[in-house]
């Protein structure tokens, strides 16, 4: 009896919070990361940023060199000038694990994975 009543009172709550969660997921949270790139890298091995499908990713970027960033899979590119802070904002509607690569200009052409962006399904 007691448990039934408790369950009965919990149920609407659960439904409500589930609905809230769902609506939050549907709207998509804004995920904010600050990245200070030194020498074309962040850390070794490349770190992983985890976000949810439908989020909006906001990267606050700073680099000590001119770089071109390329988000594989989504095929997005972003040019970053040395010493100039910049904000790169993009939506991630599809799940997966995507390397963010650095293309460096001037002299030798180099290429490395800066980080991995993991977009998790709901």
């Amino acid at each position, binding site marked *: 009896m007691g448990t039934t009543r408790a369950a009965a009172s919990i149920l609407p709550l659960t439904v409500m919070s589930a609905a809230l969660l769902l609506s939050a997921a549907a709207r998509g949270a804004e995920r904010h990361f600050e990245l200070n790139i030194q020498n074309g890298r962040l850390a*070794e*091995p490349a770190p992983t940023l985890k976000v949810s499908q439908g989020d909006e990713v906001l990267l606050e970027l700073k680099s000590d060199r001119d770089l071109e960033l390329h988000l594989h899979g989504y095929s997005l590119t972003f040019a970053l000038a040395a010493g100039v802070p910049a904000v790169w904002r993009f939506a991630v509607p599809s799940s997966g694990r995507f390397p963010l*690569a650095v293309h*460096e200009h001037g002299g*030798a052409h180099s290429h*490395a*994975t800066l980080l991995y962006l993991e977009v998790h399904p709901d």
Partner: protein
Amino acid sequence: MRRVAAASTALAVLAGGASQPVAAHAFGQRYDLPLPLEFFLAGGAAVVLLSFVVAVVILRPASDHAWQRVLPPVPRWLRAAAESTIAALGVFLFLLVLIAGYFGNQESSENIATVLVWVLWWIGLMLVTALIGNIWPHLDPWSTIWRRARSWLGRPSQAPVDGSPPWGAWPAVAMYFVYAWLELASDFGEVPRDLALLVLFYSVGAWMAMALFGENRWRAGADPFSRIFGLFGSFAPFSRNPIGQVTLRLPGAGLLGNHPRALGEIAFVLLVLATVTFDGISETPPWSSAIDWLAHSPSLRPVLLSLGDAGIDVLMTANTLGLLLTGLVFFAVFAVVCRLSALIGGGVSGSQAMRAFALTFLPIAIAYHAAHYLSYLLLAGQLAIPLASDPFGWGWDLFGTRGHTIDLGVISMKTVWYIAVVAIVTGHVVSVTLAHIEALRLFPTRRAALLSQLPMLVLMVAFTSTSLWILSQPIVQEPG
């Protein structure tokens, strides 16, 4: 797929600060999320549990005729039309690979040659062959061109020759190893022109071998592609029986009793299993750490530097060693387990057991291969849409599809996870079942058969768990 593992610092260290010239877009890059822990655990638990269920349920010897139905005959004209259409398609695509590869855009994702060979043929057709049926004997352009050339020259068609070709399956083992090395350790096949030249080189070799040994013996013995498509096709539900009727059977049933006869054939099967597994291992963080360790090891540094001067970077060295080692470990472990199984069961030799059980591991490898490449096939396969309009990457727009970009949302990772775990558990159950049926046929008593399967069961659980573990690892790869 290729060019994996991130030993970027290691590469920079060895290159002495100079960096590697690379293409702007990675070809063969997979974007799979690691399998979450709960999927990994549920899959592992199901694998262990179902192994025991199969062991207990299959106590009675299976009949010699596995479930099989002969399908209604296809009209002769329709069959002939289908076969010649497939053969013509094979020759057309073969020429397209050569011409587009050699003359087209040298960016691998903007040339139909690389997409056709690596994505659609090697991964796509291979999975279709395993899950539906094998059309390679008709599609095989080398055979079609050979036969056409012979009939134009007025030579009679060759009758099938019995008996294995010289050296058995060993030439196929060697060629398959080189091919796997090209795919997994080197990046030669990624540049369209190199790929076209490799295909041309292989073609000349294949035709010379056909001239020397006869087309049928080449195909039945030494040709690695006929052999691997044949292998995957023997798992498939649809097949042709010796009198040409199309039959339907349970997936995997075709592997029963279809034993490799010689050591070379067993080695080929194990090499296929090993390459499928190493393909996955080479993208895991532990492998990447191993490469870093290798690159920073002071004792190996001079060797690696001199290899580097010869154009062989540390990644290629490590992957070559890894591929070789995985193959040898698979062979050694399989031989030991078969010997144990034979000792426990009694009355048979270790090599008899190896012949009986080699193919029973194939379903696990096929399931893993499918799970590993499912999303890749659906994403990279989309490259065929723009390339159908612009096969050479010259800006043509034959069918108006040139502007198509890859739709990442075509499959959700959650769907991939469910399919992956279900496929791997199913593959495991099929493998364990096949091994039990083979054991019941091989050993004198049911008790002996059941006991003989203990080491085999342990090995199968280990093989399946390795597959699940690889899928649960985050992919680490150096984007090309």
